[in-house]
Structure formats: C-alpha cells, structure tokens
C-alpha cells in the first residue's frame, strides 16, 4: 500500500519551534532503545518477536520499530500502568507466564515453537488467546484473554504509536511545543503538518510538500 503521507518525516521538525529541549532528549532516548533484552530469556525473546510481528506487522522497506525491545524496556524499568486486574499477576510475571502459555499452546496445536509457525497459524493462536480459548498448565490461574487485552495489546501497540515511524504513517504532527498550531478548523493545515496524498494524482505534490514540512 502506498504511503498516505509520502516523504513526511516528523523528525525533520526536530530543530524547529515544535520541539523543545526535553522533547528532543526524550525522543533521542526512545530511538536509542537497547536492542538486546534485559528481562526476557532467549526463548522468550524469540516468542515475543514473533508475537509483535503479528500484532503489528511492519513493512519490509524500512527499519522496523523494535517492538520487543520496548516491551523488555518497560518491564526492566518497572514502568507500571497504575492498575492491575486482580486476576493478573505483576507485569513481569504475567509476560513470563503468557509467553510460556503461548509457546505451550503452539507445541500442542502444531508441534512446533510459536516463532516457527506460519503467519496463519500464529494468528489462529492469537485469536484463541483474544477470545479466552487457550488453556493449559503453563497459564496457571491467569486468564489468557486478560493477558491479551491488558498486557499484549497495550504494551506492544503503545510502543508502536509512541514512535516517530508510526507518526509518519498516520500523519500525526508529533511534538508541538512551544509552537502549537494556528489553523484549527476543518480541512485546515498548518505548513508544519503532514500533507495527505489523495489516491493517485496528488501523490507527487504531497511528496514535494512533505519534504518541506518543518
């Protein structure tokens, strides 16, 4: 699928009035996330990688957002959500148990590790997890549906949509301090906002304009 916002790069605004110093530091840190796990074991890391690839499949023609690294970082840094369902263990334990549960389900259903399955097989297991249909000793008392809804989905998707690559995809303006915005109404765009390519004809124009969005 063609880019909706061709050539838009939110990072091009890094030195404009839309980014203050603390924002630059925060995004720099985010882009420099360690790619090696601090929390997960090698086995868990492989399962997690395959899981992230199905929750948010990424195009091959750009550097992927390193989703497993962000999940690992969240756990290793002990960043909490502010609440925990009574039926879920702490996030570190939930992830350990959930990945083990997924791996066991994979072995049982397909006789192989989750990361070796086809995309269809993986998606099939994830649908089962989403609908509460995975059981087995590895899950312990943890309902797989809650694990899916409150660990898998938020921990992976929040990391993705907090990344500049995702902002480029959806045409989000990104950081906006202190400049903010001026043109507020419907169908209004500030010159420092992404230009959307209408199907077909305007793509070249959008690409040209987006290379000047600063």
């Amino acid at each position, binding site marked *: 699928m063609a880019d909706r916002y061709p050539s838009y790069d939110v990072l091009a605004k890094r030195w404009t009035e839309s980014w*203050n110093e603390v924002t630059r530091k925060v995004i720099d840190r985010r882009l420099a996330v360690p790619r090696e796990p601090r929390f997960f074991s090698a086995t868990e890391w492989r399962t997690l990688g395959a899981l992230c690839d199905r*929750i948010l499949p990424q195009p091959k023609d750009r550097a992927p957002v390193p989703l497993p690294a962000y999940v690992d970082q969240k756990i290793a840094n002990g960043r909490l959500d502010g609440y925990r*369902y009574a039926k879920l263990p702490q996030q570190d334990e939930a992830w350990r148990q959930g990945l083990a549960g997924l791996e066991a389900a994979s072995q049982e259903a397909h006789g192989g590790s989750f990361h070796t399955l086809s995309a269809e097989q993986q998606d099939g297991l994830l649908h089962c997890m989403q609908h509460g249909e995975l059981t087995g000793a590895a899950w312990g008392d943890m309902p797989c549906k809650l694990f899916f809804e409150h660990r898998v989905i938020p921990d992976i*998707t929040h990391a993705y949509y*907090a990344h500049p690559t995702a*902002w480029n995809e959806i045409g989000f303006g990104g950081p*906006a*301090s202190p400049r903010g915005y001026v043109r*507020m*109404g419907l169908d209004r765009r500030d010159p420092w906002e992404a230009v959307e390519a209408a199907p077909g004809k305007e793509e070249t124009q959008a690409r040209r304009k987006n290379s000047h969005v600063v």
Partner: protein
Amino acid sequence: MSSDPFAHPRATNGRAPDVFKRGGWVPMRQFSDAEAVDFVVVGTGAGGGPLLAGLAEGGFSVVGFDAGPYFRPLEDFASDELEQEKLYWTDERVVDGANPITMGGKNSGKAVGGSTVHFAMVSLRFRPEWFKSRSVLGYGADWPLDWREMWDYYTRAEQALSISGPLSYPWGPKRPRYPCRAHELNGAAQLLARGAEAMGIKWTPTPLATVSAPHGRSPPCVYRGFCRFGCSTNAKQSQLVTFIPRALRAGAEIRDLAMVGRIEMGPDGRVTGVHYHRGGHWHFQKARNVIVAGYAIETPRLLLASATDRYPDGLANSSGLVGKNLMTQSNQAVFGLMQQEVRWNKGPPSLAITEHWNYDDRKDFAGGYCWMAQGPLPVEWVTIQTSSRGLWGHALRDEMEKYNHQVGLKMVGEMLPDERNRVTLADEKDRYGLRVARVTYGWGDNDKALIEHALGQMQTSLEAVGATDIFRQEDDTNHLAGTARMGDDPAMSVVNADCRSWDIPNLWVCDGSIFPTTGGVNPSLTITSIAMRTADRIRTLAARGEL
C-alpha cells in the same frame, strides 16, 4: 536542563521552584517537624491547592504534602504521551468487580498540583438540583450545601482559574461572564456544533481552564493539544501555576516527594500529626489539624491505613462509609470517519460541549450527562481502537492511518452511588511498605441505561454530520468521587458541610471523595469551589473559637 524532579525533593532550603521561570526559585517558609503547624494538607490538587492558599492567606501555619514531584513545566514537560505518564499515579492498585476501573492517566495524578497538572481543563458548574438530587430529583443523596452559596464559589473559582468561556452559557441559572473569551473551535468541535444543531439541541464552546489571552505570567494557549500530558507553556491554569504559588507567597510550605502513610491519633481523640516518607526516611510532622485531600482512592486508603485499636475500622469511620460509594463517571464515546481532514489533535481536546441531557429530564433513568468533542493522541487512539473493536494486525494499522479524518464525541456521565463500589486495602504492599488500594467497581442498571441513551444520542449527532464507519467505545470511565461523603447525618456520612469529620474534630477531608453524588459534568471546578468554601469556613470557625 534542570535536575531530575524524581531524584530529590525540590522544595527545600527555604525555596520552591518558580514554575514560570527556567531555573527560577521563589522563597518558601519552612516549618520544623517538631513544631505543631495549624494545618497539614495531604494532597495539593484541586482540593488541596485552594485550601493551602486560603488557609495561609488567613494567617494559619500550613504545610502541604504531595507524594509526587514538583515539576517545572517549562523544563520538564515533553510533547510526548508516554514520557508524560510521569504525571500520573502509576503505582500499583488492584482493580476488580464486574466493571474494573482503569486507573492512571484518566483519574489519578501524582505531582504538586495533583491531577490538575494533566486534567483536560473542562470547568463546569453542577446543575443546581444536583445538590439535592435525592429530594428534588429522586435519586442518589442530598448534599448539605446550598446551590446558591455554591454559585458564588463557582464564580470565585472561575475568576481564580481565569476560565475562558462563552459570553453566555446556555444552561442553568445566570452566571457572570467568564474572565477570558472562549477559545476558537477546532475541526472536532465544529462537528459537535453542527451535529447538535441538526438535532435541535444547544451547544457551546467549553469553559476551559487555559487562558485565551495573556494573564498574569501565563501566555495564551498555543493549541499544542497535549493538555492531558501537561502544559509546557503554563497557559493551563493548573493548581501548580495558580493556587500553589499563591499559597507560597502567603507563607505555606510545600513538601514534594513526601508520601503520607499514616495519621497519628492522640489519647484525647484528636489527631496529632502525620507520618510521611521523604528523602528515604519516615518523619513525623506535628499538626493541630489534618486535612486529607488525596482524592477518592488515596483519601480512604490513608484513613483506613491509620486504624488503631481504638479505631479498628480506620479513622472517621464510625458510619462505616469510608471507602464506600465510590463513583466514577461514564466516559463512553462514539467515533466516526469524515471525508474532510479533521486533525483533531490540535487544540484542547474538548473545545465544544452540549449539556442538553443534564437539563432535560424527559428520560427513563436517573442522572444526566454531557458530551464533548474529542482529540485523542495516537497512543490513546490505539487504545480506543484495540479495546473497542478488538483490532490488531494489518486491520489495526489500516484503521490507524485514518487518524486525521476521525471525529468523536465522548460523554461524561453520572454514575449512581452504590456502597458495593468501594476502596479497601489489599494485602500487598507498595514501595513505602503501605498496603495498596483495592478498587472494586460494577455498573448498576441505571448506569447502563444512561450509557445506552448517551451512545444513541451521540451516534445520531455523528450521523447528522455525515460521519461513516461509526463505532462505539462502550467501556471507558474517567473521574472519581465518593468514598468519604459529606452529609447532615453522622450515621450516613463521613464529613459535614464544612468537610470536617464527624468523629474527630481536627480531622478534615476536602477533595472529590466528599461528593455524595457525582453529577454529569467534570468535577474539578466543584472540588475547587468547595475547597475555597472550606478555607473560608475554617477561618470563620477559628474566629469563633470553634476549631
């Protein structure tokens, strides 16, 4: 670059941060632990802030405690959803019940200034009848306050927070002009207006606590749209930039990164002070009065955790109601897709509102609700997409790409008090060694009927503006209230109209937890108004020798 606000307390050595100036300081009076201060205020949000200012200006010695850091918005606040989670109370809390509440950014702050540092600034008055909803409207519980007195305090709160609002407000009794003009509408708000007009109901620009013109040391709002993640320019009139600086000027002390873990009782049945954790140690601050202003979870948690042999069920709890009647507000939404570019992330998230169903009683359920325009940023938007539609994979990415064309309406709805909805202490402990809160919640039949009505109305409005691909977010809640309700009867309430506990004369509770009912509007302006009233009442009582 300033120091890490979490590493060490900033309000020390006779000074506190000047939030308006990079690296700046303002002088701060300090009290010793051993010296009994007139008032300790636990919490510095919408309840604590006005109390600290009002009491210090009244000549009392007063210390405000906050478990969170003392932020310098100009230096500490990034334009980033994840980074700014540092404003939220993200310590562990256990949630259960039929409809567990998602705790965190939508209902809990941990900072000097409390949740007002990240609130959406929506500043609304209660409908007058809600102060007597049991006797006038037939549901919930009556407040021991008179709406006419509250109307005056609302005016004072609106002045103190420099609210930007419409020239005339379409609902309720007359009110004076707002101090600042209303903000310009963004695309999302324009669509709310069109939808309401198509339905034949009124709408208005939302009264907001962010200035539309320079005011004091605050510059006008620049429409960044990161309001719920902290205002990096100080346009937002949070407690951190309004009442707290006033309190400091009047001689109050603020202790940041100071977690109060226990209120101490003396043998005479009066509180003697608070135990608090700061700088790696527990300390004890002596006080003649303690006011708890920690909001609907931390307030009952502290009262329950302060149990003694004489008060085995916690302090101020002879009614058995501490922790009970927790209320949240229904925050369901309807979203759709427009052909036009909406770019809803620009400007404050809720620039237009309709309170129609707060003032129209032709419906078959109790309570009311309003709805507002929406502008979720990407992380919140993906949360809505995944939790409401169960999307993931390619389907999720495809939907997310439509971001700039989305439009939405979100309700703030009244949920009814129910003693089964409550805060208790779980067995597990937090980093201070204190038992964490367990939050139990389930919706009643009336709550569900109200939500269903609102979803239908909001959907009609979106259809009227030509939105397509409409879907509902059926499970979301936001603000909190209850757990230490005020009333006229000591057997049926925890505090009286002055926010003074019935059981212990020098123990007070003043925050959203004193609400007997929660109404169908955002609660912060009501909390602020009641705190301003309480400070006045304390001054009056003191003058009469009745403290």
